[in-house]
């Protein structure tokens, strides 16, 4: 979804408000903003992410793949099969793979090493679209839901975790592409907006906590549950960069940078967003 598309969604609300408040003044805009806040509050009534969570729990427990085993032997950081609270400590270094991994890359690792899927098969559909559902999004929905309310605590103990954080920070400020955009173009100052969309300042604690702890999210405008790998992928599309490779070193580095910056806040996803 492009920036322009999400603007038009807000414009529907905004235009309706202009018709009511036909005279332009600051109040027309603040009432449009209030209206959006009301819309967001209404969304909180029910979250279709639960459908992804239920499917994800089944997928975790089912015997699947060429080796016909479940993922219950998968160690996502707190020991084999331990799901509760695990996401609030990711990404982290895993000695068996000798690299820092986020939840999605760790799940793929387990699908390959435990269940016997090829890497290509395990990553064939990392982002779902309509009837082409993504198992990885479902698994991510369920596992992240098991960290709801858990305080974020992403450690930088291992050298590779520190390296990932530093690289993520550099990438955050890396300008490129025809528009000269970096992550920081939109996310390094407080109180800024694109159209009427508030932008979290991800370089300070409060903004990073607000931004990071509300992904994955069910996106009403797309009818899909989206993971943090998707969030980064789509940011770079809008930055006019080439496509971010799923599970790539930069994707893990940026996630480490942002997740660590969110430490201390209660994890609060899967969320629901416009």
């Amino acid at each position: 979804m492009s920036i322009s598309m999400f603007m038009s969604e807000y414009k529907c609300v905004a235009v309706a408000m202009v018709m009511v408040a036909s005279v332009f003044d600051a109040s027309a805009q603040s009432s449009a903003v209030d209206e959006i806040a009301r819309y967001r509050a209404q969304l909180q009534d029910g979250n279709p992410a639960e459908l992804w969570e239920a499917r994800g729990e089944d997928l975790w427990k089912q015997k699947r793949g060429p080796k016909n085993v479940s993922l219950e032997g998968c160690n996502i950081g707190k020991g084999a099969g331990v799901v509760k609270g695990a996401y609030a400590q990711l990404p982290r270094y895993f000695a068996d793979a000798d690299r820092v991994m986020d939840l999605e890359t760790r799940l793929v690792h387990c699908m390959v090493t435990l269940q016997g899927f090829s890497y290509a098969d395990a990553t064939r559909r990392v982002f779902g679209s309509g009837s082409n559902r993504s198992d990885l999004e479902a698994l991510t929905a369920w596992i992240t839901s098991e960290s709801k309310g858990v305080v974020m605590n992403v450690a930088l103990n291992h050298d590779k975790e520190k390296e990932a954080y530093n690289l993520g920070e550099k990438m955050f400020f890396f300008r490129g592409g025809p528009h000269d955009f970096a992550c920081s173009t939109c996310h390094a100052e407080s109180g800024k907006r694109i159209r009427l969309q508030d932008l979290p300042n991800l370089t300070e604690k409060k903004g990073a906590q607000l931004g990071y702890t509300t992904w994955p999210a069910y996106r009403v405008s797309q009818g899909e549950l989206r993971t943090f790998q998707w969030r980064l992928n789509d940011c770079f599309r809008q930055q006019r960069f080439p496509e971010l490779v799923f599970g790539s070193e930069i994707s893990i580095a940026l996630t480490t940078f942002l997740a660590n910056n969110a430490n201390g806040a209660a994890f609060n996803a899967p969320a629901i967003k416009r």
Partner: protein
Amino acid sequence: MSILKLAFASVFVCALVAAGCATVSDKTVTQQDLKTIKASFKENGQAKLDRLDQDEAQRLCSIAPSVTIAKADAARVEKMNLESIKYPADGKLMGDWQQGERIAQTGVGKQYSDNPATPSGGNCYACHQMSKAEISFGTIGPSLYNYGKLRGTSVEMQRYTYGRIYNPQAYSACSNMPRFGHNDILTEQQLKDVTALLLDPKSPVNQ
């Protein structure tokens, strides 16, 4: 603390900073980092990997907003970008403000999901307040409401405005605004139309 002690302390800090720079600071993007970055992306449609090759302005400006770019670097970025501005051969700088308004409202262009045959937009409203009627505007850039009314439409102002859209970094190193002409985002005619949107007395920007 005495002035002398203060002076000593600052000399000490400077020495530390210099030592840090000599051994490559933590925040410097190294050749190895660039390799990792390139390996983490794949080309998709019009978005090729060469979009990750930074020009000097992009390299010098890859810093947090809280960090001030060195004066000499800022001057170099501005000079380099100023020299890149190409003014229209026909000498006309103001086009059609109505077309300009369409360009200002549109955000498509240059994303790998965009059709390269469709003209790009300028997406001005994403970051700037411009007209009275459009209340859905962003705040990354300053308000441009009444831009022309406040400045007039002299030839100098037309040249400045056209140049500022063509390449904002000619006037403000590391500006967040895309270099719309320099990087071939907008065509010459589109740049004229957006210039008119800002300056034409009939434009909604100046009502």
